């Protein structure tokens, strides 16, 4: 049976590229090295119950089967007629498709936005305020002796992140801390229960005590790898950390500013910040300054809680301050497998990473004004095209209502609440399983996505579908000019 190696996983921004997939008769029957989320996708993607398999058009209120050509024509008509169409999604498809999507958005004078608008959009705005000291993940694997996950739970959202790039990876200058972790488990649980315990850990149900308290453990005196998890609640990732720092909900900003002051040897006039005693905070600040190479990863817990982009501003500012004392980097934990790629392609073609408005024939950018959620919330759009995304499940209610009342085109491999309310549905092929392409890892390292099996007969790639719509839009516009 053919085994395809070095497969890049089309699930999260960690973009593991070491999967081995076994294919038999155009079906995936086994996948190795994958995390549970990835395995679930590989083993169930083809389930016809969840797939869009034919182009559909809404007629008399019902979605009925149509031909591909009819669906293309209808979509092109909708887009040409619109005065302010939105083209949204783009983080679960290939860069090749995004390139065509941008040309389409420009051709129809639309607004195009990717899902970073609802996850790490604030992080991007912060970068535009301050810049960002960052690196590729290998730098962290080779060098980092202090790793912080802030408002991010890699154990659940990026399951192989710690194993591949941080605490449990082996680098040139730093070793994996797996053994240390196991020893610690032993201490906690006793030798007899070790096997059972590690089993439980891997099964995800188990809950282990975490290291927290009023002082950092002695390990922080060493040059070994240390992991700190900062979050509002005890997450699974916290169990793997050398120290868990609990912060009051919506107080991250205060904590960052206090740390910044301490890193600059300033003094606080309060006894505690965000629920953390100042004495402990001083120890943490010393640990930040004292490391050889620190890395701070943050998740949407920070970008979407009170303060939003200012939380990230403070986090980046802290990292920049720390670079005056040691080496420190910061990186957002990107969610969808190619959301970083969407930002990258948008930026090279237009100068801006998301929330693009082509209505005046050149790219304009002002998140808050040209971002899709804001446009929909204020009911300013008059048509929509969604690619590989499910805004009906994710957007605020008012935005969804306004999205749905306009003509809506959806390109998606799977049936979703969004496809169910659409006026035109294109069944598409899964990028990284049924079609190849390029995606960008969370550190913007480009990786090839492989085609492993053939898609169902009527499912085309996003790129192909968009190309056909673009072609038809150009034709209709040409005809109208002649009239």
């Amino acid at each position, binding site marked *: 049976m053919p085994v395809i190696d070095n497969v890049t996983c089309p699930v999260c921004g960690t973009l593991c590229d070491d999967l081995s997939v076994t294919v038999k008769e155009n079906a995936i029957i086994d996948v190795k090295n994958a995390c549970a989320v990835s395995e679930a996708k590989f083993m169930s993607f083809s389930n016809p119950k969840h797939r869009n398999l034919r182009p559909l058009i809404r007629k008399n209120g019902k979605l009925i089967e149509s031909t591909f050509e009819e669906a293309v024509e209808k979509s092109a008509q909708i887009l040409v007629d619109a005065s302010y169409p939105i083209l949204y999604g783009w983080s679960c498809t290939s860069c090749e498709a995004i390139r065509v999507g941008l040309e389409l958005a420009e051709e129809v004078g639309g607004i195009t936005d990717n899902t970073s608008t609802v996850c790490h959009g604030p992080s991007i705005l912060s*970068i535009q305020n301050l810049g960002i*000291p*960052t690196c*590729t993940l*290998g730098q962290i694997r080779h060098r980092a002796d202090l790793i912080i996950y802030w408002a991010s739970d890699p154990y659940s959202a990026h399951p192989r992140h710690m194993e591949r790039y941080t605490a449990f990876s082996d680098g040139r200058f730093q070793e994996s801390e797996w053994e240390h972790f196991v020893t610690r488990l032993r201490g906690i649980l006793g030798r007899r229960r070790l096997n059972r315990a590690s089993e439980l850990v891997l099964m995800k149900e188990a809950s282990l005590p975490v290291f927290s308290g009023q002082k950092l453990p002695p390990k922080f005196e060493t040059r070994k790898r240390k992991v700190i998890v900062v979050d509002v609640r005890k997450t699974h990732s916290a169990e793997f950390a050398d120290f868990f720092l609990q912060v009051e909900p919506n107080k991250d900003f205060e904590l960052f500013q206090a740390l910044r002051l301490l890193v600059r040897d300033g003094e606080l006039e309060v006894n505690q910040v965000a629920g953390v005693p100042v004495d402990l905070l001083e120890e943490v600040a010393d640990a930040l300054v004292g490391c050889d190479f620190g890395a701070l990863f943050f998740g949407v817990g920070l970008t979407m809680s009170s303060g939003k982009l200012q939380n990230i501003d403070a986090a980046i500012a802290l990292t920049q301050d720390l670079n005056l004392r040691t080496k420190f980097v910061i990186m957002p934990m990107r969610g969808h497998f190619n959301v970083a790629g969407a930002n990258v392609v948008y930026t*090279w*073609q*237009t100068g801006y990473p998301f929330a693009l408005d082509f209505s005046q024939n050149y790219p304009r950018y002002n998140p808050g004004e040209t971002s899709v959620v804001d446009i929909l919330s204020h009911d300013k759009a008059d048509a929509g095209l969604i690619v590989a995304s499910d805004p009906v499940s994710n957007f605020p209610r008012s935005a969804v209502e306004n999205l749905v009342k306009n003509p809506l085109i959806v390109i998606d491999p799977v049936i979703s609440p969004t496809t169910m309310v659409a006026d035109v549905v294109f069944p598409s092929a899964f990028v990284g399983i049924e079609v190849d392409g390029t995606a960008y890892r969370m550190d913007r*390292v480009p*990786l090839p996505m492989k085609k492993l099996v053939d898609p169902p007969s009527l499912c085309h790639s996003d790129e192909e579908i968009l190309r056909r719509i673009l072609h038809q839009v150009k034709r209709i516009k040409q005809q109208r000019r002649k009239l």
Partner: protein
Amino acid sequence: MGGLLVKNGFVYDPLNNINGEKMDIAVLDGKIVEKTRNAKVIDASGMVVMPGGVDIHSHIAGSKVNSGRLLRPEDHYKDVEARTAKTRSGVGYSIPSTFTTGYRYSRLGWTTVMEPAMPPLKAKHTHEELNDTPMIDKGAFPLLGSNWFVLEHLRAKEYEECAAYVAWMMRATKGYAIKIVNPGGLEAWGFGRNVRDIDDPVPNFDITPREIVQGLCKVNQLLNLPHTIHVHTNNLGKPGNYITTLETMKCVENLATEVNPAIHLTHCQFSAFAGNNWRTFRSASEEISEYVNSHSHVTLDIGQIIFTNTTTMTADGPFQFILYQITGNKWVNNDVETETSSGIVPFRYKRKSYVHAIQWTVGLELALKIKDPWKTFLTTDHPNAGPFMAYPKIIAWLMSQKARDAVISKISRKARHKASLPSIDREFTLHEIAVVTRAGQAKALGLKNKGHLGIGADADIAIYNLNPEKTNLAKEPAMIRQAFKNAAYTIKDGEIVVKNGEVVKSVNGKTYWADLKASQSLLEIEPELQKVFEEYYTVKYENYLVPNHYLSIGAPIQIQTKV
């Protein structure tokens, strides 16, 4: 493709020793030919005809450039390009979007541009952007001066193995030349440190920058690469760094051959600072040009400062960190595992700043004091010293003392008194301009079909509305600027793509890369490489390679190596 006949222009084709003669240039099937029949005629009478411009060093594509774009919406929104029936929209100023980059180069009459800093791990990104950069031919230089494999081979003095690795790298990343940035310093920057000078060993690697430069120079010669090593020196941007620069040139002196230079020093302006600190800062153009005038193994490009608000971006992470501290502006740093680093800081060069004004004089002094124009090329290290859109201005400065004096009268008074520029009366001829903007650059890059208009050359032609017979150009700098700003015609591969400064046709250019043929035994490094590869990188060997299909029009240059 129908033929073209460019009639009656004043032709400047230095590589073929044609110096402003009135003649016709015939084009067929994208090449310069002896003659064509029934060709479309372009009346170039009263105009200057040159080979299409060549840029040896301009940051136009890739991870770092794109981070710069992302960083600066405030830079874009003042300078936008609306879509037309022929062109895509975009944004401009210091870091134009890809389409706009291509159109703007073409409007200046430039047809070949090299992206000089490609982190190998992100080579696919560079090529994807180059594919979206229309109108020009291009190539990219992989960064190798702090690469672990290179450092380890050179430390062990395994030059042939290192050559095999570099040959593999050129194929793997579709690269064109060896780029060295702050040799060894970028590895040190991985832990926030730097190397002090050319003999300061790289932490953890026990090799000096001198050994890296010499080693890669040897490797470059073993591989017969078309271009020399392309070097951004240690200590760039620091007062007193000219000593390091001289040492860098000297360290490969004995590797020079009669025929070819051994080293290209890029954006030399930033490496020609004298003085002990910013207060005693002064130009070292005298020391550098004296050395270059008496040696034949060096070429350099100037990296001319433009007084404007631009974006600095180099692979030199520690240097960018210093700029961040000096300016307090926003700062991006992006280190790449096993290979390199990079940094970005927005920067404004001010006329009234003593240091900036001296920097402005250094670039021009280098160009004017180095006697042989074939050794020195016009660049702005786009966008580091200024956007490439300033080339017409620089051409005017080189050709006209009057144009220089107009600026000198407005710069910092202290700089005006200290600089040697006001006393230089050399004025470039159009012939010399053609050397420093195309012929010399093409020659240094080893691009045989570029930079000239001889039979068989690529039909990349720039026509400027400038009449050297009618006007004393040195007295009319505004006319020079105007003519070079909007090419009357740009012809790319035999097609008219720009007319009167407007893009009339969008075309896609080729991407050159060095396809090195080494002996079988050296090609067998792959299994060895694969073994350590996963210890060094977080991606799989297979996924690191850039397959041919990543280049929309790939143009491999086949080279037989000496190993």
